[in-house]
């Protein structure tokens, strides 16, 4: 068994930059891996130079970060340029047990999701360990084992802030709905792309020869809607984290008279918050009516053994856990958006049809998984 299989390699020298000829089988050469790896390394290098130990050390290195991202983007564009021509001609199927007759790409995607499960399990294990291992700030406050002016270490779940008012919860809640809707639009895109020419032409009353372009544009609309919802998700997240938003006039009364909903950042819920103060931990707030009478703090203050005041807390661990876990989820959304941008573009160029619709399905698997993670993140980080 020697020699070459002439039809596959000879006379076919695809450019490592240009589109692949997929009818020849698997992709041949590509510069994308090399470029993307270099960009990734440059990004990490620049980032480590910009921030050192929680402080901005060298803002000039931001150019390295930017350059790294640009190089990654170039690599990504090379990768996609080669994929743009993919029309479903080359779609190998698994041959043996256990994945017999399933597309290799689908198998790979599921295997990838297995490792993603482990990523989020690690983050949740971190969360559980800290949530259970470090005393909760509210418990510490009520125990009275603190003195004004000295910071105590405790775990402050973001939910304590977020779930305290409907306004705080609004961005997270809207995001939850946005993700569910976006999952649905991806499925609609898949359903549309899979519709056979005949069926599509009947349903939408389109001429047979226009079906491919029309259908692909419709797919692009659904994918674009998904992209919009994902953008909405990240925007609201930024508002919730850093920006805050004004409350409309009539609702100000409901918001304790404040005209603005503070972001987590302005509330002081930050990764470097080692002297966090909040009205919930102020014995004089509401004249102390919020302190439950069965708590140790209440008895101590009655007996005069505790002077009361504002508890100061070191909540860095709790804040880090919250921002990094939801941030990791956010990065997954961002990665999905990059994929969606490519897929929308491909749809606008008339690239989607029943023959390659499975690509949307396999992207959808990832996208639903991100939704699935949010189903767990939302109750545990935003609500409880």
């Amino acid at each position, binding site marked *: 068994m020697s020699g070459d299989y002439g039809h596959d390699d000879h006379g076919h020298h695809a450019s490592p930059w240009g589109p692949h000829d997929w009818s020849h089988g698997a992709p041949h050469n590509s510069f994308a891996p090399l470029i993307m790896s270099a960009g*990734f390394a440059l990004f990490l290098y620049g980032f480590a130079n910009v921030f050192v130990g929680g402080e901005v050390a060298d803002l000039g290195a931001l150019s390295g970060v930017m350059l790294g991202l640009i190089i990654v983007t170039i690599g990504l564009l090379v990768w996609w340029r080669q994929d743009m021509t993919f029309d479903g001609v080359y779609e190998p199927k698994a041959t043996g047990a256990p994945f017999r007759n399933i597309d290799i790409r689908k198998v790979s995607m599921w295997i990838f999701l297995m490792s993603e499960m482990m990523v989020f399990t690690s983050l949740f294990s971190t969360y559980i360990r800290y949530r259970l291992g470090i005393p909760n700030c509210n418990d510490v406050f009520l125990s009275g084992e603190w003195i004004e002016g000295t910071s105590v270490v405790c775990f402050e779940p973001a939910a304590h802030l977020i779930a305290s008012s409907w306004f705080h919860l609004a961005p997270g809640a809207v995001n939850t709905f946005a993700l569910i809707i976006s999952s649905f639009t991806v499925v609609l895109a898949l359903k549309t792309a899979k519709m056979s020419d005949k069926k599509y032409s009947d349903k939408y009353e389109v001429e047979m020869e226009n079906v491919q372009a029309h259908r692909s544009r419709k797919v692009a609309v659904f994918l674009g809607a998904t992209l919009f919802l994902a953008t909405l998700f990240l925007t609201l997240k930024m508002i919730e984290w850093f920006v805050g938003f004004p409350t409309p006039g009539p609702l100000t009364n409901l918001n304790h008279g404040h005209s603005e909903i503070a972001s987590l950042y302005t509330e002081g819920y930050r990764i470097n918050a080692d002297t966090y103060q909040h009205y919930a931990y102020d014995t004089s707030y509401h004249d102390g009516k919020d302190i439950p009478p069965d708590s140790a703090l209440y008895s101590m203050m009655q007996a005069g053994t505790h002077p009361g005041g504002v508890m100061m807390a070191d909540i860095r661990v709790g804040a880090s856990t919250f921002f990094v876990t939801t941030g990791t989820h956010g990065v997954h959304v961002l990665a999905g958006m990059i994929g969606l941008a490519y897929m929308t573009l491909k749809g606008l160029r008339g690239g989607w049809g029943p023959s390659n619709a499975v690509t949307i399905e396999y992207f959808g698997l990832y996208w639903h998984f991100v939704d699935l993670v949010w189903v767990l993140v939302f109750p545990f980080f935003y609500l409880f």
Partner: protein
Amino acid sequence: MMQQKSFIRTLVLLTVLGLALSMAPKADSLPTGINGFSEKGCTCHGAVPDPGVTPSIEGLPANFNASTTYTLTISFTGGPSGTSAAPENLGGFNLAVDSGTLANIGEDVQIWGSNEAGHTELGNDQTSWNVDWTSPASGSATFTLATNSVNGDGGASPDDKWNMMSMTVQGPSAGAAAEELQSADPFVVLITLIIVSGILLASVILYTFYRVSPDGFNWDSFSPWIVEWLTSTDHKKVGTLYFIAGFFFLGVGGVMALLIRIQLAVPGNDFLTQDQYNSFFTMHGTTMIFLAAMPLINGFANWLIPLQIGAHDLALPRINAMSFWLQPFAALLIFTGVFSGQAADVGWTGYAPYIVSETAHTGTTLWAAGQIMLVASSTLTGINFLATICGMRAPGMGWMQMPLFTWSIFIANLMLFLSIPAWGVGLIQVYLDRTIGTAFYHVASGGDPLLWSHLFWYFGHPEVYVVILPAFGVISEVLATSARRSVFGYRSMVYAMAGIGIVAFIVYGHHMFTSGMSPTLRFVTMLTTMLVAVPTGIKIFNWLKTMHRGSLVYRTHTLWALGFLVTFTLGGISGMFFPSLAMDTHLHETYFVVAHFHYVFVGGTVFGVFCGIYYWFPKMSGRMMDEKLGLLHFLTGFISFNGIFWPMHKLGVLGMARRHHTWFITTDDFANIPAEMASWNLFITVSAFLFFFSNFIMVANMIKTVVAGEKAPADPWGGWSFEWMCSSPPPTPSFDPHNPPVLRDANEHIASEPTRFGQWFESLMMPEDDEKEVSH
């Protein structure tokens, strides 16, 4: 022949000439003018210098400072002095110096012309005198001293003896030319060696290119050739790239090991400072595991998995190229610290909270960043190989017909990619702690250092099996082929590997016995760790049984496989000391641990890699390797390897602590390190050098093979798996994708009823018939 002889003669002549030339200046500086001494001061008693008298000058520094006054003490011992009862007329001296100024302190010494001194009448009754010497501004000073030992009888007698000496001290010369030689910064040594290796590698690449097409040695031919290598997604080319990267870093890690061994060769050494030592053992561990062992294993996996299962390439070729290219850039990040002299100093385990502290070297941040890229690389590799092995086996190749090497890679990748996210998340936490200032491991804010240990070892323990399992696979293939029979207990081999894979996840606590971890978890992992010996033992006995009544063919790869059996079993036995909580508490952090994991890493993985190289190199290069050089490599390598690590068991039990930058001989009650340790440590260092250089025999062998080896047949050893059915080297794509090979089982006519489990599993799968296309 004649030419050779005359060449040797010339060489000998030149050597002698060179030696003579190098000795000439010394000959010139030999002391002369003994006669001068009898003229002044000392009328020397005695005729010829007598070796029984030993003059000495004390108080002279090794290197004098400019224009400084030193008080010298001149004395002598030996001779007849003092034999008389009366303490008078004991001796005399004469001191001459060629530069600087002499001055007398007391009445017992007199000065002539500022550069010569002698005793006075008063100084006649002494055997030692003091004199001041003011050094010159630069240059050197040569002292010539004659002393006279007198028997005290008041006159010259034949008993009186005298002798002389001369010594030269260096001072600062004009300018700073004669400064004391600075010892080299070990980092500079390392960097130099890395750069030199890089240049050597580039030269080898150029040379290879030249050999491939001697006529086309120009840029127009070179650029498509190098672009092909940079962009290739062919599993064989990517595999070769993995090998090149792996061997390069094996060498770099080896250099670091040598520098560490130089430091540890003698007690109290300061070749490496404590800081540098920390960096060196960190970088050594990281390089060896992540940049040497893993790429070498991936090299084999890339080359062989598609060939062994009859696939034309891996499932995701571009992803495969991606997982390779992440590695060199990750290596760059990891080594950034080395080049800035601030390499990570946290150990390959990077224990918190030190890893996030400000005192840890700045290189630690990029060390973590590089590791994050390696995590990404390993995840992509895992997906790729799992998809390939699950989905691209040739028709007829069920799970239980797969070669054992494929099985080992399957289980290794399954473990790797399920466990590595934990470490990846830990690394991201560390990276963020060190950059934007999150507080996962800041103890003051309630961060839990043990969380890092947990996340690390949740990955770290499966990782060590990830590194050893492919070696198991290689050994299984090699022993079966060499014994000219099928491997004994194929199914039990598979189940043993799968068992190791599962158990790997629940034993990791044994790395943390002394960390203050939950006692319940300590107890649980103690039991499970002991369990690991069972599947491993099954494998060892299966290998023995494979050879038993087989007919062993002794080729180089067979020898390495046998060597592996010995060393790996020894490593396994020493490993059985650690699961026991009490024993572990004693042996923790000693060289016993170092000995154990090097016996399994080097004696297991690296020997497995060597074994695989000798076994599959003919397939990869299409040329046979030199068996004589191979034998030499095995003998030197095997012996020197054991020379390094066997004595470490003893050192560990005696209490020599690992991760310490030096050690001392002491009789202290609590750190009793006996004097014999010095000899053992020196022995280990010498062995380490031998082992390092013995491996160049293999490199030479590989180069020689590629350049001028004998052509290899498709199946030189009589192996049975698919890769031996391809030509050597295999074509691209490795098999025709439209006409894959079919595996025929000799027993396929014995159609057995599927088991109940088999039936259930069958019901889960897609229908066999391709026509009944599902859904869509």
